[in-house]
C-alpha cells in the first residue's frame, strides 16, 4: 500500500498512518487498499483522506454461497459461505421486506411465498461490499468534531474532506485535485 501524509507535525502524521493501518486490519481490508493520501492541517482546520481500492471481483450469484430448496410455503436458503450472510440478509430484506424473510438460525433463512427461481437470480455485488467497508474505515479515522464534509467518489477512489465550521472553495478544489490524482495513479509504477 502506498501511503502519503502531508501535515505540519511528524508525530501526528505518523500516528494517523498507524491508526489507519490498524483500522484496515481490524476491518480486514488491508489487501484491498492500494493507496492512501492524507492532508492534515490542524490550524485551518482541514482533514483530507483519499483512498484507492483494488478492483473488486464482480457479482457473486446466490448459488455460489448458499443452497436453495423449494417448499410449499416458500424457499429455504442454507448459507454455505458465512462471509456473505449479513449482506445476503440485508439484500433479501431490501427486496422482499422483513415480514417475508425469516431467519430460522444463524445460517438458515426462510423466504415466505417466494419462488426458488426468483431467489436463484439474486446476486451480491462484491464491489459494493468493499465500498461499505472502506467507508466504515474512513468514518473511523476522521476526527469526530469535523462534521462539515465534502466527498467525492468514483469506481475505485473515495475522497473525503472534513472541516469544523466552513467549507472553503479552495479546499474543495484541493479535494478534487487529490481525487483526480488518485484516480490517475498507476500503483504498479508510481508513487504519490
Amino acid at each position, binding site marked *: 500500500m502506498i501511503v502519503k501524509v502531508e501535515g505540519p*507535525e511528524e*508525530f501526528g502524521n505518523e500516528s*494517523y498512518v498507524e*491508526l489507519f493501518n490498524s483500522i484496515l486490519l481490524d476491518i480486514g481490508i488491508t489487501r484491498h487498499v492500494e493507496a492512501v493520501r492524507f492532508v492534515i492541517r*490542524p*490550524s485551518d482546520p482541514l482533514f483530507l483522506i483519499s483512498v484507492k481500492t483494488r478492483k473488486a471481483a464482480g457479482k457473486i450469484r446466490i448459488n455460489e454461497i448458499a443452497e436453495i430448496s423449494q417448499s410449499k410455503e416458500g424457499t429455504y436458503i442454507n448459507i454455505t459461505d458465512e462471509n456473505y450472510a449479513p449482506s445476503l440478509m440485508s439484500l433479501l430484506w431490501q427486496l422482499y421486506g422483513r415480514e417475508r424473510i425469516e431467519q430460522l438460525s444463524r445460517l438458515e433463512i426462510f423466504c415466505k411465498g417466494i419462488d426458488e427461481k426468483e431467489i436463484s437470480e439474486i446476486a451480491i455485488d462484491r464491489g459494493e461490499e468493499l465500498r461499505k467497508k472502506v467507508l466504515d474505515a474512513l468514518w473511523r479515522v476522521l476526527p*469526530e*468534531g*469535523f462534521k462539515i464534509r465534502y466527498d467525492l467518489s468514483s469506481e475505485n477512489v473515495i475522497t473525503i474532506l472534513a472541516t469544523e465550521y466552513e467549507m472553503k472553495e479552495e479546499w474543495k478544489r484541493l479535494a478534487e485535485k487529490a481525487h483526480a490524482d488518485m484516480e490517475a495513479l498507476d500503483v504498479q509504477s508510481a508513487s504519490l
Partner: protein
Amino acid sequence: MYKVLLFDGGVYRVNELYELVEDVGGFIIQKTQTHVQILVTLAIPEEEKDVIERKSQELGAKLTEIPLGGTEIAVVAPTLGRHHMPHPVCDIAEHLRRYGAITVVMGLARGKGRKSAQISAEEKALINEYDAAVFVLGNFEDCIKTEKVRLFEDIKVPVVVACGPSIDALPNCKAIVSGVCRRVERMRRAEDIAKLEEVAEKVSKVIEERRRIIDEDPLFVHPAEVRQRIETLPVVQKSLRPAPIVLHLDGLRVKIPYYEWKDQLESIEVYGRKLREIAELSDSRLDGSTLIRIYSASKVESMNQLGSVNSLGDRSAASAKE
C-alpha cells in the same frame, strides 16, 4: 504525613496488625477478605512504616506501598466516542487503580472538535470534586497548545495531561505525559505499559505534592476516621453501590443522597464534636452522593475561638438587657 500501604496476607493473627496500626496512630481504610486471605489498606504515619513492615514479615504477609491509596481521580476524555481514545482512557484508569486510586472515566458532552471543544461549568465543578484529573488529549501539538488548554483553565485540582506529541509545558497543568495517542487497540505492548507506568508515576508525584500541602496545615481528623464512623450508619451498610464511601485527600464522598441524610450525617460525633463543626457537607454533583470536606485543625480552632467570643458577646448583651 500518612503513608498508604496494602497488607496482603492471611487472617491468622491479623488482629495484631489492627492493634499495632491503632497504637502507632494509623487507620484501617479498607478490608477485603476472601476465605482465609485478607487485603488490608491502611494509612500510618510515615515514620512508623518500619514497625508495620516488621509485623507483616512476622505474619508472613506482603506489604506494598500504594501511593494513590485513599484518592479519587477523574480520567477525562473529550468524548467517549470511539474517535476519542476509549482504549487509552480506560487503560490509564485501570492502571491508576493498581496504584490504589478509585478512578472515574468522564467524557465531556461537547468536547469534540478543535475550536468547538467545550467544557461546561457543571463539568468543571464535577472534576473539582476529585483529587486530581488526567486529561487524555490528541495527536497534534498545535491543537492542544492553542485550543485544548481551555478545557482545564479553571480546574482547581491538579491536572495531568496525557497526549501524543512531546510538549514541555502547558498552562494550568502539573505534568505532561507524551506518546499516548489515538488507537484502536488496548495498550498491551511493553512500551505502552511503560507509558502507563509513567502516567501513574506523574499522578503519584502530583498527589504526593498535594498531600504535603495539606500536611502543612493538617486536617482536624484523617478522612479514614470519619469513614469508620459513617460506616456504622445502616443506610451505608445496606448500600449496594460499589464503594459506598470513597476517601479523598481532604475528605470523603458518601454515596447516599445529601438532602435525605444530611441531618444524620451532620450529627455524627467525631472526638466530641459534631461532624458539621469539623467539616463542610454538601450535595455532590455525582447523583445521590454527599461530599464531605474536612476543615483543617487550625480552622476548627479559630471557629471555636470565634464561637466562644460570640457566645461571650451574647451573654454580655443579655446581662446588659437585664
